[in-house]
């Protein structure tokens, strides 16, 4: 492999890079940031923003018969070229020199910044991008601070409705074309393009079409300025107030890595986090916007007990004791437990312990299937089906016992049911309220009010995936960590804590004091998890089991990297 490495001088220091590395990536690896707008490692490089111009030099071409003198390290002299080159689309070669801080490079950057700002409105106090705007950042770092432009700025359409989730402000656009390339190359829905070419160049959506594919909000992420903004997050909060928490999306089995932004206990947006084994730098709109239920009015905030006049709030002690006493009062063959593949491995491990304690055989999770969209959305819409199979030790496919449980309730073979993290009356659950009313006892642990809770005798308020720590296993068998983003509302508790208290009330206490400890107990009992701890799971997750499944979007990206179209 040593033959493939070339020597490159960056700002006076020599480095080695594989042949074919882009100059901008070589600089990044050497710890030098070259400012850029249009370049994105996951997209093609048209080189149209000109921000990454650097000074480049090569060894002079020798006269016939002339031998160039090498210095003591064996390097040839570098002859600097009078004109700059773009670092994003040029690759390194042997004995190449790059200057990112020379007078030429600096004057290029100042010039490009001044030209970009000629028509850019100064509405930063209103613009949502302020605080994470590349134009703001590079203007401070590489701009001159003033403008010599005395003419009127070009007027373009503002606040254009180009899709259900994305809003366009053409005056702010700096024509980097990242969004156009994303829709054409990654989302395969080329609806964006430039019109009115010239000084009135305008980003527009194709007549009669809209930017409405399930990946449209990624254009907002990659837009370096505030031209594309999210309708959902628009004017909600300035970004400098947001607290970012690294977590994963639980919308489907893919488990896209995310960064969840919140302020003062409420979640305001969710953005993808780069993980080249799971979701590249993208995520679907559906998963991204699936957090509003966390702030919902319908959240359960107190343990509830059903009396003659409906549900009333009781203390945790009474609620857990009632649930334990009721369950213990039934024969183990008359009890069924329906857990959820939306629970973490830690929660599921305690469900397994609970089933063992009660001697329950009828234990399953609700299966949820949709269509694999060929990009990131997996057919399995449960985030932790793999984990449920491993941890609960299910001997059949998840969800295959549910119809049997339904039949047994009808025939009266099952008299008591505990639903954990699932609304059984949902379309996937398929239990009718009439069927649930045939039960002698129904208990539920859930985060939000639902029809199953209406029918349940004991309702314990649990946590959403944004409020708990724990781990999940995605469809490709990757073990990933969830992090609590916001505090729990009212008296609600994390599910593992509720289940631990329930186990203790049934005299099967395991003494776990945190989800980390539950994971350690799990690692002792389930061989796939052996030797791991919750804290040791890398922020990018780690392979737990080999499933042979691939991510369609990642496969296409790998193909483009191999062809040299993108850096990756």
């Amino acid at each position, binding site marked *: 492999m040593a033959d493939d490495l070339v020597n490159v001088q960056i700002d006076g220091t020599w480095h080695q890079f594989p042949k074919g590395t882009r100059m901008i990536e070589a600089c990044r690896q050497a710890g030098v940031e070259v400012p850029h707008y249009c370049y994105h490692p996951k997209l093609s490089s048209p080189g149209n923003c000109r921000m990454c111009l650097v000074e480049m030099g090569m060894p002079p071409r020798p006269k016939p018969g002339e031998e160039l003198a090498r210095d003591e390290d064996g390097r040839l002299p570098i002859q600097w070229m009078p004109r700059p080159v773009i670092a994003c689309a040029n690759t390194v070669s042997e004995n190449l020199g790059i200057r990112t801080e020379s007078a030429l490079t600096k004057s290029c950057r100042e010039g490009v910044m001044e030209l970009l700002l000629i028509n850019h409105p100064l509405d930063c106090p209103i613009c949502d991008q302020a605080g994470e705007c590349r134009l703001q950042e590079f203007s401070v770092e590489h701009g001159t601070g003033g403008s010599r432009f005395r003419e009127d700025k070009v007027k373009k359409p503002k606040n254009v409705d180009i899709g259900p989730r994305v809003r366009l402000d053409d005056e702010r656009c700096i024509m980097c074309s990242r969004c156009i390339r994303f829709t054409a190359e990654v989302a395969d829905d080329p609806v964006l393009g430039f019109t009115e070419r010239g000084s009135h160049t305008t980003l527009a959506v194709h007549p009669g079409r809209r930017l409405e594919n399930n990946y449209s909000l990624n254009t907002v992420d990659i837009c370096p300025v505030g031209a594309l903004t999210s309708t959902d997050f628009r004017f*909600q909060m*300035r970004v400098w107030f947001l607290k970012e928490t690294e977590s994963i999306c639980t919308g489907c089995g893919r488990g896209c890595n995310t960064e969840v932004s919140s302020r003062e206990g409420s979640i305001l947006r969710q953005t993808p986090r780069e993980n080249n084994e799971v979701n590249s730098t993208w995520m679907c709109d559906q998963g991204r916007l699936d957090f509003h239920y966390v702030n919902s009015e319908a959240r359960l905030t107190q343990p509830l007990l059903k009396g003659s006049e409906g549900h009333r709030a009781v203390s945790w002690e009474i609620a857990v004791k009632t649930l334990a006493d009721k369950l213990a009062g039934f024969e183990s063959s008359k009890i069924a437990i329906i857990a959820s593949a939306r629970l973490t491995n830690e929660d599921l491990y305690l469900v397994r312990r609970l089933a063992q304690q009660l001697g329950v055989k009828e234990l399953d999770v609700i299966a949820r299937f949709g269509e694999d969209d060929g990009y990131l959305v997996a057919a399995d819409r449960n985030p932790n089906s793999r984990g449920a199979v491993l941890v609960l030790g299910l001997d059949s496919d998840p969800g295959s016992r549910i119809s049997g449980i339904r039949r047994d309730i009808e025939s009266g073979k099952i008299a008591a049911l505990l639903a954990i993290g699932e609304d059984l009356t949902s379309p996937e659950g398929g239990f009718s309220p009439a069927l649930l009313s045939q039960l002698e006892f129904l208990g539920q642990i859930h985060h939000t009010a639902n029809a199953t809770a209406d029918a349940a005798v004991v309702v314990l308020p649990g946590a959403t995936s944004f409020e708990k720590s724990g781990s999940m296993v995605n469809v490709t068998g990757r073990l990933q960590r969830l992090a609590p983003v916001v505090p729990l509302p009212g008296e609600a508790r994390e599910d593992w804590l509720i289940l631990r208290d329930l186990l203790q009330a049934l005299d099967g206490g395991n003494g776990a004091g945190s989800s980390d400890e539950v994971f350690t107990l799990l690692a002792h009992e389930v061989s796939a998890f052996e030797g791991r701890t919750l804290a040791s799971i890398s922020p990018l997750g780690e392979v737990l089991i080999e499933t042979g499944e691939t991510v369609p979007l990642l496969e296409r990206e790998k193909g483009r990297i191999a062809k040299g179209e993108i850096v990756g």
Partner: protein
Amino acid sequence: MALVVRRPQLKWWEKIYLPVIAKGLVITMRHFIRTLTGRTKVTMQYPEEKWNDQLPEHYRGAPALVTDEQDRERCVACQLCEFICPPRAITIIPEEIPSEDKWAKVEKRPLAFNIDMIRCIYCGLCEEVCPEQAIFLRKDYAITGESRAEMVHDKARLYEVGGRRVGLVNKWNDLK
């Protein structure tokens, strides 16, 4: 090291105190007579009389929001004052201006703008940081209320105190 305190060496007439007492009585009598005849005014009849006309030009009182010459609210809810406020007295909830509104092109305004006057320290950083010249410190200094809730100035109250302010930078005119 001990510190030696030098006691004053008093003369005999100082030691008997009487001349100084007499001198003091003369001063007291002089002030007494000047007050009686109205030549010295020593008491301001607060709160009937206010400090207002005696406050210096740079006096910093309660912060308030202002509208421009077209009665448009200048504040665009950029939340810089909320960010800079040292005692965190300011809370802003931004909103989008609906498209049917006269000022829809401004796009953004505060839905709620609260300043907790118990927290406010009258430092004036909000006025200094404001890019839209929407918040100013007035000369109002007697901010009172019977409850904590009353001491929180909401948007309506802030505009009532601030009123209209003209002749300032107006970036939303046609020229920009």
